């Protein structure tokens, strides 16, 4: 059991590439923290630095209060689960799980005891004498977990442990990982590129981009109060819709109409004056079939006409897709998100907007339907810095590190981590 503190950690590769840029993160004892981001954002490098498999170029890493920068992996008392599981093919399941203990010269009867207990937890008892080659993907994954568990380490590190499983098994194992972490109460750092895993698993989620920490917060916080365009676009599925807009007096003019400004948003935006270009973010669930919106709610948003291109019915909900003149939505973050998700055409003049509607709706494909958008749920971003203007500067707990933004990233990051340790201690179990 130990807390892990990353203090301005930087990784520069010999070829000069900057993989991780001054990351500061406090991971409390027993906390489950997710590092998430698109490929190449530095999340795996960060994990490898915690494990001791990569050197730390600058900064200080403390595990359980001790600086471990120059310690080898074997002296850090951490266990790691790899994406490919990295099971030793020439050893049986029992030998695989007991390997670390054997290296530590643990007596054989203690090893057997611990391995058998871990096998019971993971439901592997009948497979103990088989070799990894004869196991299914899910079983191998559990052996990899077991190898970590038997050591009773001060922290678990997981590098995309579920990404080699098929979809159904992945969901099942996700619950399993969560259950095991809760049962053992061990600090866990988990790397994934899958935002669903990040949202469902973590006590706190750290979103990374280009080696910089974007925001560290609880999943709900990330979803409701994303610090910037990148976080907003990365978290949530289907992703947030982005529309270009211009600030007018008391409204934002967008492709779907003038959305009235309310409350705090009005205060924040009025200061910067009208005529300012912004990017408006709307979650799919903030659209509704206009006919099903009660009359007393209607004034909080606006209605508009859209021709429905595609309708997907999932039973419990319906997704509709329509094309909109989105105006100039052009930000580095969005280009990167589009590249990551394969929607390389976002940011062009026209884009597809996704809306999640109540399954009761009678809208069908090809209709020219009347839709309603909730003006209260808008997120407004500065196109230049990507900052979420909706959060304003009223001391929001959501931290931000504007890439290329006003605040120096290092300072912003340090502040973020500091703030969050206070507010997001692991929930009592």
């Amino acid at each position, binding site marked *: 059991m130990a807390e892990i503190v990353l203090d301005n950690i930087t990784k520069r590769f010999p070829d000069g590439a900057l993989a991780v840029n001054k990351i500061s993160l406090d991971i409390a004892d027993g906390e489950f923290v997710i590092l998430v981001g698109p490929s190449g954002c530095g999340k795996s490098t960060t994990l490898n630095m915690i*494990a*001791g*498999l990569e050197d730390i170029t600058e900064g200080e890493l403390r595990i359980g209060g001790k600086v471990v920068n120059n310690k*080898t*992996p*074997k002296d850090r008392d*951490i*266990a*790691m689960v*790899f*994406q*490919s599981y*990295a*099971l*030793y*093919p*020439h050893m049986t399941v029992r030998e695989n799980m007991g*390997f*670390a203990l054997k*290296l*530590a010269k643990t007596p054989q009867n203690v090893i057997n005891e611990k391995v058998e207990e871990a096998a019971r937890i993971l439901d592997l008892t009948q497979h103990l004498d088989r070799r990894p080659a004869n196991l299914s993907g899910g079983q191998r994954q559990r052996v990899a977990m077991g*190898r970590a568990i038997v*050591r009773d380490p001060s922290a678990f590190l997981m590098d995309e442990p579920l990404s080699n499983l098929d979809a159904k098994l992945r969901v099942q194992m996700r619950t399993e990982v969560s259950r095991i972490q809760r049962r053992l109460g061990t600090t866990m750092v988990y790397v994934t590129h899958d935002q669903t895993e990040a949202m469902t698993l973590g006590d706190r989620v750290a979103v990374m981009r280009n080696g910089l920490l974007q925001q560290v917060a609880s999943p709900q916080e990330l979803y409701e109060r994303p610090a910037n365009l990148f976080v907003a676009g990365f978290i949530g599925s289907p992703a947030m819709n982005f529309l270009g807009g211009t600030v007018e007096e008391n409204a934002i003019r967008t492709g779907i109409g003038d959305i009235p400004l309310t409350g705090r948003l009005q205060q924040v935006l009025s200061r910067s004056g009208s005529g300012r270009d912004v990017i408006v973010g709307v979650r799919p669930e903030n659209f509704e079939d206009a006919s099903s919106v009660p009359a007393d709610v209607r004034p909080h948003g606006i209605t508009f006409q859209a021709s429905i291109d595609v309708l997907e019915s999932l039973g419990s909900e319906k997704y509709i897709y329509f094309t909109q003149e989105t105006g100039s939505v052009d930000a580095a973050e969005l280009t990167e998100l589009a590249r990551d998700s394969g929607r390389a055409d976002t940011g062009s003049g026209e884009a597809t907007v996704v809306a999640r509607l109540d399954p009761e709706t009678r809208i069908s494909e090809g209709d020219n339907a009347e839709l309603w958008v909730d003006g209260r749920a808008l997120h407004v971003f500065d196109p230049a810095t990507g900052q979420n203007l909706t959060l304003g500067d009223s001391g929001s707990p959501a931290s931000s590190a504007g890439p290329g933004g006003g605040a120096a990233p290092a300072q912003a990051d340090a502040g973020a981590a500091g703030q969050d340790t206070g507010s997001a201690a692991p929930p009592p179990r």
Partner: protein
Amino acid sequence: MAAVTTTSRQKLGWGATNLVVIALALIPVLWLASLSFKTPTAILDPSFVPAQWTWGNYTQILSTTQFIRPLINSIGIGLIATLIAVVLASMAAYAVARLRFPGKGVLIGMALLIAMFPAISLVTPMFSIERAIGLFNTWPGLIIPYVAFGLPLGIYTLSAFFREIPWELEKAAKVDGATPFQAFVKVIAPLAAPGMVTTAILVFLFCWNEFLFAISFTSTLASRTAPASLAYFSGSSQFTVPTGPIAAAAVVITIPIVIFVLFFQRRIVAGLTAGAVKG
């Protein structure tokens, strides 16, 4: 129908060509075997099948230290050279496959250069060196050059095998608390064992077949290997050529190779082509 006739004709053509090639390769070997079973008086008999079969040539060579001692030398020198070469090559190959270090390209280049170097051009200087430092006509005098020529072969074959072992296994071993040496011995080496066996076979075959160094750096039975000893066979008198015993000795030397290759054929091919095609 036309297509079928062409195919069968092609088959026939290929079959005939193959037969010719195999015959060209095998007839001398069979001829040698036949000779080894002929009596001394029948050596000049042109018939392929001996008129009178005899084990005399074999009993003669196997009862004299002239051949038994070189056979022991061959086995001893071959095994020791193979062991040293495989151990050193596996370490070097591991470094080549896993580490990025300055001079790696040069190292691989040098290894290739040694493998390609014409041995005959080295014989004279090496003869002088071995005489000077007292290695001439000793086991180490042959083991050292054999290791030197076996290493490039071993490094190439083994680095291909090492490259196929996922790097994450080694990371896992490190996180599990292994030192780099433990990770190599307990995780990487067992997985590369098939590659090491293959390499050992290839290096041993090289040592077993080597003739040039063997004849140049030895002068007595103390270190002469089996292939070299053939050149020193003498007949019953100064004027008789010991054709029968030479043929018998050649067969004796060949038999282990044939058995080896038949047994390990797939291993050897795998070793020579490992890493060539991504599996």
